[in-house]
């Protein structure tokens, strides 16, 4: 073998490897503890532009789901509630000192606020269940080709995760096909 053809083979090997690595290497996965009835009352949480949101909601409604109007922004984020006075009071400049009592207080305040935040969200979900009559919360994140789209279904009666799926988006997928794929697996139809 000449050095040129040897070099050619190496280049081809490297390019093939790069191509294979660049394709989504993540595997799909699916877990379902039971199938959702197509006439269930659901709220869909998705962070996208309104036209994409509408396309997703229409896909669910076409299948018979009773879709309640809940927006992702309704579940406020931690950034909004994290600004608390106790932390501000502790914000001395301690960069040159090793004062573990202060560090401990910092960390513990943060931990308590994470617990408190999760509790507030849980109370809000309970409210969604009781007052808006939503049975399932469906979270969707739709990604482009080479990435992984995912879905998660929360049963608001048992307060448990009933369904999860990771779906590596394929080249021919679009918003409708990915949503229909998830609906198919959520309902088992």
């Amino acid at each position, binding site marked *: 073998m000449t050095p040129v053809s040897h070099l050619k083979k190496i280049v081809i090997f490297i390019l093939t490897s790069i191509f294979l690595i660049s394709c989504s290497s993540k595997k799909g996965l699916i877990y379902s503890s039971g199938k959702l009835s197509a006439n269930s009352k659901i709220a869909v949480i998705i962070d996208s532009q309104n036209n994409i949101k509408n396309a997703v909601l229409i896909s669910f409604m076409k299948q018979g789901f009773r879709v309640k109007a809940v927006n992702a922004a309704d579940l406020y984020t931690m950034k909004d509630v994290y600004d608390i006075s106790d932390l501000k009071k502790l914000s001395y400049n301690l960069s040159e000192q090793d004062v573990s009592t202060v560090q*401990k207080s910092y960390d513990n305040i943060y931990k308590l606020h*994470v617990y408190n935040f999760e509790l507030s969200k849980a109370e809000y979900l309970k409210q969604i269940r009781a007052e808006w009559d939503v049975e399932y919360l469906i979270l969707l994140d739709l990604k482009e080709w080479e990435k992984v789209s995912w879905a998660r279904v929360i049963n608001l009666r048992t307060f448990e*995760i009933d369904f999860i799926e*990771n779906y590596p988006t394929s080249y021919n997928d679009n918003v409708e096909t990915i949503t229909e794929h998830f609906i198919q697996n959520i309902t088992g139809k």
Partner: protein
Amino acid sequence: MKSRFLHILFIFITLALISTSAHAESAAFGFFINESSNESFDYLEKILPNSFASTLKNKYNYDIIKPGRIPDLSVDVDAGLKIQIIKEEDLQRITEDIDADYFIFGSFKPLEENKIKLTISIFRKGTTSVFQFEETGYLETEIFKLVDRIAVQIKNIANESMIYKNGTVSSKSKLAILTNIEGDDLNSLYYEFLAGGYKISPVQGNEIYGLMDVEQINKFYHFTGVNASYHYIHSRKDVELFHGTWSGVEYDKKISDDKKIYERYSFNYLDTKNEMLKKIKSFDAIDYIIIIGFDDNKSTAWIRCLNLKNNKLVITETGIAGSSIDDITKKIIKSMTTDLPGNL
């Protein structure tokens, strides 16, 4: 000639590897203080640390230093002097000249029905943190069993993995998981637990985006339960907030508020946390809170697990390595469902 050289080189490398893996941890022991007023138990103050030290040396090849060899702890008991309780804030000073990786000390309290409760503290030299846990057992008949059990705990805590276990987590349990991964990665983590039969509370999983990065999840690295904790050494001296008649009403009020913050979040943190856990328990039937912290590359993780029925710390483990999130999660589940390595 060449093959002989390679042969010698191979033997040399093998010996070097063996000696590296056989590197012994070293631990120094302080006295275990009798917390009761019953002086007839004082004899255990020396016997307990010496027994732990001997077990670690004989069974686990630890290099050990017994309390009698530590100058700072020398007390003339014959002259009627009492052994002093070691304050955590003095650990840096006490261990300064001790040639050991860990310093282990504690206390005990005799209980009814011939039982004894021990509190064991493990301090890694050069750090600002202490791992503390409690063990209860019978005196006399089962004291050797208790010593062996505690020695196993010490051996597992006093190393890089910092493994502590106070039971296992059954696969029917409902878990609330807090972690620093999101989206499809979080689904991969949930999948392993769900496939293993666990129920998952949607805590954190009810959002599209994750809330915590590595720095934020690491605030949970120090963790406290009613039976055990890995905590920062705290000292009132760190936060002496001087005030007096000279300071004025407004300043006095500010100092008083600051003091309340330190009381609530540092000195009495366990009470504050338990109040919060009570609210969580009243809301949802969660059995365990699991904190899983991944590093930036998601190639290693640490875990803390708290039993919400009794607020006990059940598991700690650090440096759980794997090729992917599902691989690491499988290892975490294995750790949660198996007893301590080497436990009796």
